[in-house]
């Protein structure tokens, strides 16, 4: 056993319990069952009504952007895994697209198809981690188990693909790390065949529940104008009726070849934000099915751009590229000075922008609604804090 050593950690600043207006100040977090990570929310309560909610983030600020400046372009890929740990493939892909744009690399089509497949699978896995906690925040833990079971199936697929359950490091600059293993396509088809039925079950079990509806309908209403002004993207914006999906509106990769719908909510409350994710997961199944069909046209093994150097040294300049992750538009901005390491990497994280809405949405609701609203924004703190 290691003896504890002194550490230079400062004691946390104490918080007064009652402020001058006689409002109770409640500190939620940074470790709390419903903050979905390490977020601290200082809540000012008048009875049970939230007068002011102030999210305090940065408890998981790991300085990934600084670390990237001291690593080669390929070595940054594992760091991007740890950004959005619920959806690692997205950060991989967004980063790789920025590198490819910077260095002018053309990715083989088979690799693009595989990227679409894994990212849509990742969208399903990630949405399962958003829908389930929406139930868990309101107290329905069992719904979380059911969605997590679906997530485990996706994780198993990824494990067969690249050996890791969570941090895949699979999408690389120039292509993907390896081709699909034998039998993977059949397993994937089996998964997408059963998934819509499972989603229907969740839809009936959770979204049909009268208490759940009462808890989420009309809670944390975000109107479309606010969603635009605050830069909300992804299911949070789509729940408010803002029909905006980069896959359709700023098509990248091979998405224009697929036929899919963008589900949009109408009321902008927590219920719509969660429900949009259910439909998106089903739409992802459609995309995966089409991509698996399209994959047969290409030669197996053609998954990496030709003449990829061991050490990438893109010409000086900068590049920004973004993709539609499960949480919204995830962008990576890279500046190169011509060396083998990025001069600056900036991750435009959708969860960061969406979380900024919390004070706006929570005001006037009760403490119980606060956790529902926070859950419906679906923040992943690896990505918020970076």
């Amino acid at each position, binding site marked *: *056993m290691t003896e504890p050593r002194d550490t230079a950690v400062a004691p946390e600043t104490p918080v007064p319990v009652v402020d001058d207006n006689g409002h109770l100040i409640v500190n939620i977090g940074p470790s709390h069952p419903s903050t979905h990570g390490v977020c601290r929310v200082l809540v000012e309560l008048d009875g049970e009504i939230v007068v002011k909610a102030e999210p305090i983030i940065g408890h998981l600020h790991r300085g990934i952007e600084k*670390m990237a400046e*001291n690593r080669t372009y390929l070595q940054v890929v594992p760091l991007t895994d740890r950004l959005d*740990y619920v959806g690692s493939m997205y950060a991989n892909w967004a980063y790789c697209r920025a590198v490819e744009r910077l260095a002018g690399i053309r990715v083989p089509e088979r690799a693009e198809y595989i990227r679409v497949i894994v990212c849509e699978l990742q969208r399903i896995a990630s949405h399962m981690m958003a829908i389930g906690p929406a139930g868990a925040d309101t107290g329905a833990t069992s719904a979380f188990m059911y969605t997590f079971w679906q997530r485990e199936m996706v994780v198993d697929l990824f494990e067969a693909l690249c050996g890791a*359950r969570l941090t895949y490091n699979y999408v690389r600059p120039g292509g993907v790390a390896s081709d699909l293993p034998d039998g993977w396509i059949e397993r994937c088809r089996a998964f997408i065949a059963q998934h819509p039925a499972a989603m229907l079950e969740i839809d009936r079990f959770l979204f049909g529940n009268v208490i759940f509806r009462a808890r989420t309908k009309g809670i944390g209403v975000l109107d479309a104008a606010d969603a635009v002004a605050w830069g909300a993207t992804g299911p949070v914006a789509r729940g408010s009726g803002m029909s905006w999906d980069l896959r359709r509106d700023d098509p990248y990769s091979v998405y224009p070849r697929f036929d899919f719908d963008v589900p949009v909510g109408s009321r902008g409350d927590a219920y719509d934000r969660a429900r949009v994710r259910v439909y998106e997961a089903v739409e992802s199944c459609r995309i995966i099915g089409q991509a698996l069909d399209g994959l047969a046209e290409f030669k197996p093994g053609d998954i990496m751009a030709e003449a990829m150097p061991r050490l990438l040294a893109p010409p000086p300049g900068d590049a920004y590229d973004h993709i539609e992750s499960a949480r919204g538009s995830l962008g990576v901005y890279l500046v190169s000075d011509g060396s083998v390491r990025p001069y600056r990497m900036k991750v435009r994280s959708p969860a960061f922008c969406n979380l900024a809405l919390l004070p706006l949405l929570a005001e006037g609701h009760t403490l119980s609604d606060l956790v529902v609203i926070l859950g419906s924004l679906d923040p992943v703190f690896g990505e918020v804090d970076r």
Partner: protein
Amino acid sequence: MAGIDDVAKALERVPGGGIILTSIDAIADWSRGYSLWMMPMGTACCAMELIAASFSKFDFDRHGSIPRPDPRHTDVMVVAGTITHKMAPSVKRLWEQMPDPKWCIAMGNCAISGGIFYYDTYSVVRGVDEFLPVDVYIAGCPPRPEALQDAILRLREKVRAESVSPGRARTIESILPLPSDAPRGSGGDAE
């Protein structure tokens, strides 16, 4: 409660007292080992595997380990994920809120040493053992839930060697050499 050790020493002098003490120890250690409730201190990626551990597929309830979000009700803190300088005081506070006897599992490389965030970063605490006494380390980035299962079983072995009076605890063989045992200068550390 002035000194449970003194009580234990006094009891040892009474004829048959040793038997009573060892029986109490046996009951206490057995029950503690089979009822290790987890304080899920999940901060980052490993938290996902920690969630998976208590969910349907892996189901740590089989081992009697259930996650309780309240530190007062738990026995073992599973630190899963990177601890930053901003987070560390809160982790320490939660650790202090846990009632004795308590144990700590450092899950994942970040909790062991900072892992991938060891070099070049300014905000990460390099290992949770900088401020907590860690009992079991699980390597991996992130470790699989099975690895956490193994850690629970290892911790159970360790708990069995303990005693209600701290002075009577037996030492158990570490399966790996402790860092202090390693001859200096022979390590292949890149520093």
